[in-house]
């Protein structure tokens, strides 16, 4: 009888009991530990446990960096656990480990999941890792470092920062008479290109502009003058005319059968692009090297097309970084060693070459040499005006993304007008904002 229910509950009860037995993790104790960490002697055999999801997104790059770090004789050994779980799944796993009192020292995070770790007090400030190296602090790009801050405190140590880009099948462009060297730069150009592709064969689509969260929505919203929340940050603001225009345009593409509807867009859009059923789709720029390497056709990327009538072109920047969960002084210092290595000149140069992202460390530019000069498309994508990816505060970040995907589905399938879908989403967002107060 409902044995699965019982199993889950037994685990939860056990986990809660173990959590109750865990060590003191009050903010005061944490502050003391971190203060000690700055001056603590380091155990040369200190091991750092690092958990990273998203193996498909540059997991191999991280593995290479870890191997290089471990071989550098830094006196710290990184034990990397790399999984292909999503951000949200990785967060669930970390929360369970935290409740059991056995979290990893570092966990890979994005803006949507960082808030939950900060809200519960699990994530420790990582400013401490910069305290011992003022030179490094000066070399790091402050704007990119700021994407890991919550209320002014650095909680996510950045590894790389990525922006949305339009990935397109240059071979398909040629086949249907489009110029692959002149990808669409506006929504109307993109619609025309999508129509050309869709008309070339049945079952073929032009573009997929949406994803499984609001990452692809925020850019056109901001470009049209909209915002996710009001100036005070106390009420949602995405349900205005700008938001409705974005969803309305997407719905029109679906109605014209230029864009397919996917309930699980991340996986299905990537699969469809790989099978050449879709000629253009929005993806994170950091995925470009892997997508291009795995495709059997000419894949290129370009800046995101801008909605017609937009007075500016803005995209959200998502920073992949690491949250510090370690508490013991020696573990904190060991973790800091690895984090500092991640933004060192050689590591940043490797990351940039493998992820097509902007260098976090200015000093790495020399090491990169003519890399960007040889790839003007990388420069164009990274030159897009970017703002930090807005996420709802606290633990509601992942819940909001699910609610957003539902609203997007209702609008794209025509089950609700864009205004209605966004209004319903706004009511949920209001509750999220209130719950985090």
């Amino acid at each position: 009888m409902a044995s699965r229910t019982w199993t889950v509950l037994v685990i939860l009860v056990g986990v809660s009991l173990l959590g109750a037995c865990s060590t003191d993790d009050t903010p005061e104790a944490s502050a003391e530990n971190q203060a000690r960490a700055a001056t603590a002697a380091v155990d040369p055999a200190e091991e750092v446990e690092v958990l990273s999801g998203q193996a498909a997104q540059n997991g191999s790059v991280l593995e290479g960096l870890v191997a290089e770090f471990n071989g550098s004789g830094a006196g710290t050994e990184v034990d990397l656990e790399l999984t292909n779980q999503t951000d949200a799944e990785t967060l669930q796993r970390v929360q369970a480990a935290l409740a059991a009192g056995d979290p990893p020292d570092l966990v890979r995070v994005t803006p949507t999941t960082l808030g939950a770790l900060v809200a519960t007090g699990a994530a420790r400030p990582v400013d401490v890792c910069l305290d011992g190296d003022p030179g490094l602090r000066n070399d790091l790009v402050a704007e990119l470092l700021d994407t890991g801050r919550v209320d002014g405190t650095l909680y996510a140590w950045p590894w790389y920062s990525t922006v949305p880009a339009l990935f397109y099948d240059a071979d398909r462009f040629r086949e249907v008479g489009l110029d692959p060297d002149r990808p669409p730069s506006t929504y109307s150009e993109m619609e025309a290109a999508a129509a050309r592709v869709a008309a070339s064969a049945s079952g073929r689509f032009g573009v997929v502009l949406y994803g499984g969260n609001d990452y692809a929505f925020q850019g056109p919203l901001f470009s049209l003058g909209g915002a996710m929340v009001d100036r005070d940050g106390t009420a949602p603001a995405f349900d205005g005319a700008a938001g409705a225009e974005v969803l309305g345009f997407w719905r029109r593409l679906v109605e014209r059968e230029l864009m397919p509807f996917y309930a699980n867009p991340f996986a299905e859009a990537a699969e469809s692009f790989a099978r050449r059923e879709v000629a253009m789709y929005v993806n994170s720029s950091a995925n470009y090297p892997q997508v291009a390497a795995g495709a059997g056709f000419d894949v290129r990327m370009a800046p995101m097309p801008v909605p017609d009538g937009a007075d500016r072109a803005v995209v959200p920047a998502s920073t992949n970084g690491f949250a510090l969960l370690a508490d013991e002084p020696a573990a904190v210092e060991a973790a800091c060693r690895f984090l500092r290595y991640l933004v060192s000149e050689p590591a940043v140069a490797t990351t940039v070459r493998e992820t097509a992202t902007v260098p976090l460390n200015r000093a790495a530019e020399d090491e990169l040499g003519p890399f960007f000069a040889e790839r003007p498309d990388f420069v164009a994508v990274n030159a897009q005006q970017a703002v930090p990816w807005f996420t709802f505060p606290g633990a509601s970040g992942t819940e909001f993304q699910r609610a957003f995907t539902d609203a997007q589905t209702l609008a794209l399938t025509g089950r609700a007008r864009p205004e209605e879908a966004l209004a319903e989403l706004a009511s949920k967002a209001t509750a999220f904002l209130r719950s985090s107060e």
Partner: protein
Amino acid sequence: MPGLATGAAAPRLVASLGPIARTDRPRLAARWVPAALTLPAFALLGVFVVGPAAASLLLALFDWNLVSGERRFVGLDLGAMAADAELRRALVNTVVYAAFTVPASVVAGLAIAVGIEALARGRAWWRTVYFLPLAATQVAMAVVWRWMFHPRTGLVDATVGGWLGLGDWLNSFHLALPALAVVGVWHQAAFCAVVFVAGLAGVPAPLREAARLDGAGRWARFRHVTWPALGPATVFATVASTVAALRVFDSVRAMTDGGPVGHTETLSFLLWRRGVQAFEVGEAAKVAIVLLGFTLVVAGVQFATVGRRLEDAGRR
């Protein structure tokens, strides 16, 4: 001392007690040995069933953050639970899924079992074939089914979908739950077939032979001899299939993730989403209570009505 047997009376008393003492020992043993033997099972039930059930009731009363350790008593607001749109939707989805899968699984399982038993040769091979869905890992099979339901290029759209004019099942608000039900029937029919094959082996051959000699045809033999004898197997297959349907999770997670817009979100999936994904253990415990209560009620009703009749028929 009054009442104490002394002198000559004592041997008589001992003699009279002797047989009693000798027979008491086995009686005591008969009473305590089974109790001692079942004690470990009861202890395990207590630890893994009763304890967690009580704990879930307790958890449902709190807003408990397992990470920070903060907990706040919120009580069990039945009105709020009844007004919980997600919970209601999950309950309805679960019932619809069960309504799709249970009758179809039992009927298909019975048909498969009867078909196999009617074969002159190759029974063992066919039994193995139909047992395979049950032996396969459900999550892995659900992933395979997801590919088969892939829009346009998947096997389902390319064949059945084309004939019926239906497509893109997993992205459809109307077809996603039936698609999951198809997978559920495929899996559960195998279980029912195994149960019915075992049940058919217990049907007395002389009865069937007598019916045949009396001139009963195939259908009459099945209806009046085989089917009544399968009563207990039918009850078991129905109740077990119902419980499996009410707690469906694996295929939902692997194929639709509850979507589109919650149209395939079942009670088990909602429990997981709230407890594991959102880490709201109190809210998850409330769903667990609803799931447990609903399962108990459905199983109880099945036993008390059709189940009893079929079992009685089987005993005759």
